[in-house]
């Protein structure tokens, strides 16, 4: 079938940014979107930070029971987890219906380390859902977010909604954002411990990383997650990144960081963001990493790839007797 002359075939995928100021505008922008889904008895989910989740829950009243309500600061703490773990998890569960999701992945308390991954995530949503019968509405807090986040939202969303109404975003250019935030990561401190690894020393590198994590004070559950994440990154380097690489691990006041670097280049920006294909045995490594770490940052290019995982350290208890 061809599109009518002079008119592009309509993509059912809708991905507007909602620029809001205050609770009133938040509700005015999001409630009708949710109510449209409820009226059509269609699937609808809300994944937003806690305070906005409460705002919507209160406004929806009993109807909230028909909406999947998620706290994005938990479900989407690591931006790389949002597409597979939140958005596609919900959309893929309703393949025959138009799916509506309010997704708010950028909030004022996002850190400098998290933000680039957030912006890339917003840009990649467009590729992940192209052609799908899905609408994802992304609220942006005009009062709390800096100018950079607001500007970037115009590049990552083809449509903008604000108090003036709905219109196409002139600055729409998601691939620019993906490229722009593919930046060299800040160099590890000199205290970072470094280990070369290859196929024959991968078990030593894994063991070394988990020993370091144990000494640093990760919980038992976090140690399992660290071991899983480091192993998958090491395995990727050996299998796809030139057969060898370098592991660097260090701790800061409130987190453990671990870099895995190799000579490969990641060509697919959606790597690790697609749900697992049940018919394929490989291709789940990065997806798994995204699920178990607090943040995954990537820098990839002609000179190689570095993936950095962040694990939040448990708060230290004050010593007894003080």
């Amino acid at each position, binding site marked *: 079938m061809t599109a009518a002359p002079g008119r592009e075939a309509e993509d059912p995928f809708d991905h507007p940014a909602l620029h809001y100021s205050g609770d009133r505008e938040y509700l005015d922008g999001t409630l009708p979107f949710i109510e449209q889904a409820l009226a059509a008895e269609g699937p609808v989910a809300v994944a937003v930070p806690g305070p906005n989740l409460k705002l919507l829950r209160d406004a929806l009243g009993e109807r909230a029971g028909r909406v999947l309500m998620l706290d994005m600061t938990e479900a989407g703490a690591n931006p790389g987890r949002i597409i597979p773990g939140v958005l596609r998890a919900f959309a893929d569960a309703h393949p025959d219906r138009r799916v509506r999701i309010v997704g708010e992945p950028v909030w004022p308390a996002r850190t400098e380390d998290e933000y680039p991954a957030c912006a890339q995530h917003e840009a990649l949503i467009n590729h992940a859902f192209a052609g799908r019968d899905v609408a994802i509405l992304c609220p942006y807090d005009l009062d709390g977010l800096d100018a950079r986040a607001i500007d970037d939202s115009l590049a990552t969303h083809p449509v903008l909604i604000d108090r003036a109404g709905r219109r196409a975003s002139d600055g729409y250019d998601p691939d620019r954002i993906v490229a722009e935030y593919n930046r060299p990561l800040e160099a590890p401190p000199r205290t970072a411990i470094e280990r070369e690894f290859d196929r*024959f020393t991968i*078990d*030593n590198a894994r*063991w070394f990383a988990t020993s370091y994590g144990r000494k640093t004070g990760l919980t038992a559950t976090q140690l399992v997650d660290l071991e899983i994440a480091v192993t998958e990154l090491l395995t990727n380097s050996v299998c796809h990144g030139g057969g060898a690489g370098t592991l660097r691990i260090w701790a800061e006041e409130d987190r453990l960081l671990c870099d895995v670097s190799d000579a490969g280049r990641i060509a697919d920006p959606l790597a690790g963001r697609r749900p697992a294909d049940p018919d394929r045995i490989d291709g789940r490594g990065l*997806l*798994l990493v995204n699920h178990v770490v607090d943040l995954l940052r990537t820098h990839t290019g002609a000179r190689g790839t570095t993936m950095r995982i962040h694990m939040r350290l448990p708060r230290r208890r004050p010593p007894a007797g003080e």
Partner: protein
Amino acid sequence: MAAIEDDGARETDAPSEPLEPGPPEGPLRATETTGPLPVLHVSGSVDLNSHDDWGRVLRQATVRHGELHVDLAGLAFIDMRGVSVLVDVARGLPEGARVVVHRAPPCMRRMMEVLWPAGLDAITIKGDAR
């Protein structure tokens, strides 16, 4: 098949010596106990150096009354592909048959929970390893 030993356990194919001194868990080892309920006991670790052996050991294990029992109490670590190999073997069993995993290591439980949150008909996991 490998020789039957006096204690009723028989060695199945396992990799040779590790190529470099490794962490304490060492290479993949597997023995199957015989008797009314054959159980494949696996120890060491499953990673990119032992995926092929792991798959072979599982495919050669005895399926009795529609169940393949694997005891992973001695398994220090298994990676994502290792878990996928197990899932693949389980799904390849005859209709209605399943793999019963005893004492799965925490990393395997975690990976199953993340990648197959709804569970799998072909795999049942019983008991904690530690």
